[in-house]
C-alpha cells in the first residue's frame, strides 16, 4: 500500500496539470463563445465538395 505515497502525488500532479491547462484555455478566451464552435465543427467547410451542381439534380436522399 505504500505505493500511494508515490501514486497519489502523481495522480494529483496529472490532475493539476489538466486543471492548469483548462485555466489557461479559459484565460485565453476559448470559452468566451460557447455557441459557434460546437456548430462550426459540424459544418463541412471544404468548399470543393460543394462544386457539384446542387441546384439542378433531382435526387432525393
Amino acid at each position, binding site marked *: *500500500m*505504500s505505493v*500511494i*505515497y508515490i501514486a*497519489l502525488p502523481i*495522480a*494529483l500532479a496529472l*490532475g*493539476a496539470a*489538466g*486543471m492548469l491547462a*483548462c*485555466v489557461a484555455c*479559459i*484565460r485565453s*478566451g476559448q*470559452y*468566451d*463563445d*460557447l*455557441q*459557434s464552435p460546437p*456548430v*462550426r465543427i459540424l*459544418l463541412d*467547410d471544404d*468548399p470543393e465538395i*460543394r*462544386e*457539384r*451542381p*446542387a*441546384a439542378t*439534380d*433531382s*435526387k*432525393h*436522399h
Partner: protein
Amino acid sequence: MSNHLEAGSYEADTCAHCGLSMRGASADQLNRPTAANEPSFCCNGCQGAYELIHGWGLTEFYALRDQLGGDESSANGSRKQSFEAFDTDDFLGKAKPRELSNGLLTATLAIHGLHCAACAWLIENAALQTPGLIEARVRLNDHTIRLVYDSKQLKLSQIAQLLDRLGYELAPPTHMPDEHFRNEHRRLLIQIAIAGFCAANAMWIAIALYAGEAGGLAAQHAVFLRMTGSVLGLAAVVFPGRTFFKGAFAAIRTRTPHMDLPVALGLAVGSTVGILNAILGRGAVYFDSLAVLVFLLLIGRWIQFRQQHRAARAVELLLRITPQHANRINASSETETVLVDNLEVGDRVRVLPGESFPVDGVIHRGKSTVDRSLLTGESTPITIDVGDEVLAGMVNLSRSVDIETEAVGSDSRAGKIMQAVDQAIGERIPIIQLADRIGGVFVMVVTLLAVMTFLIWVSTDWLAAAENATSLLIVACPCALALATPLAIAISIGRAAKRKIFVRDGAVFQQMARTGVIWFDKTGTLTEGRPNIQELHGEKRALGLAAALERECCHPIADAIVTAAAHSDCDNNLVAESVEVHDSGVTGVCGGSRVAVGNRLLMQTRGIDVGVSMGRIAESVEAQGVSPIMIAIDGWVVTVITLADPIKHDAAGMVSKIRQMGWRVGMLSGDNSAVVARVANQVGIEPTMAYGDLSPEQKVNVVKKGAIKAGGTNKTPVIMVGDGANDAAALAAADVGIAVRGGAEVSLQAAPVYVSAGELSVVASLIRAARSSRLLIYTTFGVSITYNLIAVTLAVMGQISPLIAAILMPISSVTVLTITLAWPVFLEQKK
C-alpha cells in the same frame, strides 16, 4: 440533401429565401414564379440573395437553416444605402481597420441579421469565394464579425455591400465588447475548474478512507490520505469558495439577510474542525463534502449569470432608435456621414424622410411632418417648418430637412430622459430574494440548534458534544437550498427567452408572482402605434389610385392607405406618373387622372370641391373628433376615409386575463384624454384607472404613487408596460418594467424585461410563469429543507456520520436539480 428541403420551401405562399408568407405583399412587389416548381420571392432583396447563394453553390444554407431551427432570414437585402461611408475612418470611429504585419487589414464589426449557425456558415463560406477577402469569422454570441482582407483588391464598403445583398447588415460596433462580462465569466469558469478538480480528487480520497474503515487501512496511510484530502478541500474553500465569504461579510455589513450567510457558516465551521481533526488525527474530516458544495454552488451561479447575460445581450442587439450616424453638411454644402458622437452644437445636419433625428435642433431649411410618438406618446404626426424645434428620436416623415444642432448627447431631451431613467433605477429598492430572506432565518435556526445540541450532550461527554454540534452545522448547510433559486431563475429566464421574452433580472419573477397594479402605455403598447383605415365612404376604386401615390412617400397614413389597398380588391398595379408631397397630403397624376389625397386643408388650397354628400360625411366624422382623409379625382372628392390607431387584437383578452389573476389594470398615456378614454373602454380598463395627457414625469409620479398608495408594510408591486422614450423613466421606477416590441432604445435600457413577441398575451403568460416559478422555488425549498431536517435530527441525536452526510447532501442536490429541470414553467402550449 439540399433539394428536397428546397422543394419544401417552394410551397404555396412562402418566399424561397426568407420563408415569410407572401400574403400582404403588394402585387407589384411579388416576383411570381414563371413555372409552378420554381421558387417565388416576396421582394427583390430576397431574390437577389437567393440568386447570389445559388451562384456560389451554397444552397446547403437553406437545408442547414431548417435543420438548425433558425428563424426566417431577414428579408432586408438590397436596401438602398450607400456603403462608401465604410471607407472613411470618421464613420467607423474606434473600429477602423488595423493593418496586420503582412500588409492585410483587419476590422471587427457588428453584424445584424444573424439567426443561427447556418448564417455563420453562409457568411464564412461566401468569404472563401470572394477574392481579396481572406477571412471572415462570425461570433454568434456577441454578433460580431472579424474580417481580414486585402485592401488592394477589396474595399470595406464592397464587403459591406456583399453582406447586405445576403441580408446581413454590417455596422460599426455600438460599443467595445463587454469587458466586464467577459472577465466575470472567465473568473467564474476558472473558479469552477479549480473547485471541480479539488472536489473530484477529495471525493476519491474520501472513498478510499470510507473503504478503508470497512476493509482495514494502515494508520499511517489513513493519515496521509486525510492530510491530502484536507489540503484539497481547504484549497477549494479558500480559493473558489471565498466568493461565499465575501458575500456573507457584505450581508453582515449591510445587515441584509443573504443565502451566502449559512453557506459561509457551514464552510467556516467545517474547515476549522476539519483542520483540527486532520492535525490531531481523530474524528471526521469534512473536506470532500465542502469541496463538492463549493463546486455545485458555483455551477448554479454560473448558469444564472449566463442566462441573465444572454437575455441582456438579446435586448442590446435590438434596433436602436436614435441613429448612430448623421449626414453632416460641410462647408462646401455637401453631406458626409459622421458618427453622431462627433457632431457639435451649430453643425448642420440633413435628415431624409424616414430617418429619425440624431440630435435636438432647429429646422434650418425645409418643411416636413414628424412622428413624435416615441417621445410623447401622441399618435398623430405634427407639421414642422423653418424655426421649429425638433428632438432627437423623432421620425422625419415627409421631406428632407436641414437642422442646426442645438443639443447633443446628454444635453438633448433624449439624454435628459436617460438621466431620469438612471435616477429612477438608482432609487428603486433592491428586491431581497426569497432565498436570501430564508438564508437569514436559516442561520439563526441552525446556530440555535447547534448550541442546543451542544448543551444536550455536554453533560455526558464534552468531546461528543462538540463533534455533534459541528456535524449539525455542516449537514445543515443549505446546499440544495442555495442551488434551488439560481437554477429556478435560470430555467425560467431560458424558457421565457424561447418565447421571445427577455428577462435581464431574475428578481422580477418574484415581484410578478404576487398581485398588484399593472400600468399600460397606450400608443404602441395597447394599440398598434400606426393608424389604419377604419371606415371608407364613397368610391372604393379611388383607394387604388391613392395607394399608387402614397407608395411614393413615407408616412404612417401613406402606409395605412397602401396596406388597405393591398387587402382590398382594387387595382394594385397602378403606378403614379408624378407625385408631389405637401404638408397636408399628396397630389399627383395616375392613370391619366389628377389625384389628390389629404385632409380638408389640402382640398381647400387646391380648390377641390368637397361636394354635399361627401362634405356631410366629413362633418359627421369630424364631430367625433377624428380628422377625415379625402381622396379627390379630377377635382372632385369621391371618397372619405377615417383613420384610427387600432387596438391590438389580443389587448382586451389579455386585460381580462390579468384581471382574473388579481391584478389591477390601468393605462397611462401622453395622448389626448378623449382618445385614452375610448381605448380604455374598448379594452376593458376602468375609467378611473385610465390617465391621459401625462408628461413622462407625471407618469413616473403615478407609478410611484401607485406603489405608495397600495403601500403599508407589505408593498404591492407595480408593473409598467410601455414602449416609448416617454415611458422610460416610468419603466425604471416601477418594480417591474416591461418594454414591448418596437420600443425606443432608452425604454429597452430602463426595463428589466423586454417582450419581442408581437402578441400582448405574453404579458399574461409571463405573470403565470412567474407564479409557476415561485411555486417551483417553494417546492425545491420544501424538498431540500426536508433533507436538512432529517440530517439535523440525526445530528441532534448524535447518529450522523460523515458518510451519511456525504450521501445526503448530493442526493438532495440531485432531487432539486431534477425537479427544476422537469418543471413546466410556461404551462400553456404556444399557439
